[in-house]
């Protein structure tokens, strides 16, 4: 049988708790089977908790009732400690994930380039400029889903034709 260490104060607390549990347990059947007496909700809840506890503890019934309670309290303390340790690990991991996320490139834009004729592309680029916007090569390539090299080539052609020019801000 495993050794259980508990100090005098802890033992006194266990005894107090056992006493109150035993007292509740003794009272419960009487209240449960009374048809005339309304049973308060909290009594039903306490009874439910007690039987849940008893059911969980049944596998430990080879121990004395006091030892059973001590073991449950000890296990509870260990679980609380483990819970604190896991929370600390979780916080560290969250921090690391945050750092990694901040290093990732911004949302990846995958665009499928359109395959249209050069004349069509030129007409679309000219139409885009007619809206009065200042555009970079990459803006045009993104907006019209065209190959960057084709956009540069057509823009140079439009510049030589005097259709577009370098913005004053450049």
């Amino acid at each position, binding site marked *: 049988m495993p050794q259980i260490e508990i100090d005098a104060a802890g033992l006194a607390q266990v005894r107090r708790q056992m006493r109150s549990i035993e007292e509740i347990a003794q009272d419960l059947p009487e209240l449960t089977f009374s048809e005339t007496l309304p049973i308060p909700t909290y009594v039903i809840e306490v009874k439910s908790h007690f039987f849940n506890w008893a059911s969980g503890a049944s596998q430990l019934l080879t121990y004395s009732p006091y030892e059973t309670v001590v073991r449950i309290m000890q296990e509870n303390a260990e679980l609380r400690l483990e819970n604190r340790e896991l929370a600390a690990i979780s916080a560290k991991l969250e921090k690391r994930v945050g750092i990694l996320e901040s*290093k990732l*490139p911004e949302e990846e834009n995958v665009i499928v380039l359109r395959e249209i004729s050069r004349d069509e592309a030129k007409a679309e680029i000219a139409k885009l*400029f*007619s809206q*009065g*916007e*200042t*555009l*970079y*090569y*990459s803006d045009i*390539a993104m907006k019209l889903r065209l*190959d*960057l*090299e084709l956009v*540069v080539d057509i*823009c*140079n052609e439009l*510049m*030589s034709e*005097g*259709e*577009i*020019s*370098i*913005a004053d*801000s*450049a």
Partner: protein
Amino acid sequence: MRSALPIVHRNAGDALRGEKIAVKAEKIRMGSVQAGSSRHQIQTLTLEDKVFCIIEIPLVASRK
């Protein structure tokens, strides 16, 4: 006055310098982040296979 036709550099060792450069390539490999404040970090990357780069210029429709 800038030339309407871009000068294309094809020789190994040629460099490009600009405020904004548009690129395309089959492979883009992220490189290191050089030390600096978070606002002024300099990043490096390598472009491989069918690489095309152009120094961006703002363009507008000509006033007629």
